């Protein structure tokens, strides 16, 4: 019996890295969003928070776009 440990290992490592990156980015984006909401309530602009959020969500969207490309392609 032959188990393709190499392929299984690759799937595991790639999944883990991408999930950690996506979850991390998204969470940091949410942190930015939360900072902005708090800043606005305090009467400040909160641009830094918004910038972080937009950047993070943009990268997440790009990764999802790549996923759709993989599915369709």
């Amino acid at each position: 019996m032959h188990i393709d440990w190499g392929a299984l290992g690759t799937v595991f490592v790639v999944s883990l890295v991408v999930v950690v990156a996506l979850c991390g980015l998204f969470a940091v984006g949410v942190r930015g969003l939360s900072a902005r909401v708090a800043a606005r309530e305090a009467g400040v602009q909160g641009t830094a928070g918004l910038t972080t959020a937009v950047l993070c969500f943009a990268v997440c969207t790009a990764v999802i776009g790549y996923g759709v490309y993989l599915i369709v392609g």
Partner: protein
Amino acid sequence: MDFSLIVIVVILASLAFDFTNGFHDTANAMATSIATGALKPRVAVSISAVLNLVGAFLSIQVAKTISGGLVNEAKITPVVIFAGLAGAIVWNLLTWLFGLPSSSSHALFGGLIGATWIAAGASAVNFTQVVQKVLIPAVASPLLAGFVAMIGTVMVYKITAALRQDVVSKSFKTGQVLSASLVSLAHGTNDAQKTMGVITLTLITSGSLAPGSSPPLWVILASGLAIAAGTYSGGWRIIQTAGKKITDIRTPQGFAAETSSAVTILASSHLGFALSTTRVTSGGIIGSGIGRKLAEVRWGVAGRMAVAWLLTLPATALVGAVASKVSSWGTAGTTLVGVLLVVVALGIYLWSRRSPVTPDDVTESAAPAAAIA
């Protein structure tokens, strides 16, 4: 095109299987989104149904083998396919009745193995392939996806712990909808292809289509519509289990679980180690339950799922074998199996009406114990 009775029966059984595949697997993509309230139940199944239909048209990779090399394809006759489908349909309906997520592909494989075994002997079954393509992925899928989802959940909670929870909850709901849609699309491109492959190969074996033909448009349309209709009809019993019974899911967990499922499914299908979608998503949910502090994973439910997974192959093989034996008596046998299949399906449906699970039972607010994220 001139269809013999058995070909018509196989096409009908394929579409019926496709339908059960749809309602069985809605939970994979949508259970956590529904449970956290990110999507209303009806909206969730509608999105999933549309994406499954779109997926059926998107992919050009139609399954080129019926069994993926598990059995000697030369020994597969329409009768064997029909018997295999019968086993898979019965199993899908039974596991649905008990609200257990279970892999439709493995059910189909099991049915085909049993049917081929009876029709052409044990030598026609490639047991090494069975271990490699079914048993190992069955164990690896939930473990791998579970671990990945656990790490994702831990991270998400670490980063967002001190934040305003209203913003957190809202953001993750949006993220969850996106990742769940990705799972649905990936599912549509995979699972509808399977049915198309089965129908097309049956048409080729019976001489209605030239060898090597792509599926005719009506086959693509019918398969896509059958899986979409199944998806839309909901399979609320399984959604309830996946979304609420395994663990109480909050939005960040739902996001982590869905993202892990989508990524793992895509990685597995593009890096050459096939994993089972159902087991990946179930593993993801369990992992997200382990990853959140104080979240309780109900291991009894997880254990029942594991038992169902262990039984999938032998149980479907048994039904497939019996159906294959009876069908081999000729037209009368095939008709008898068809009639029995309809009777069993009706019986299971009527049984399910005794304790119906509706869209109202699968949301957050339905359980007083479920906490709001």
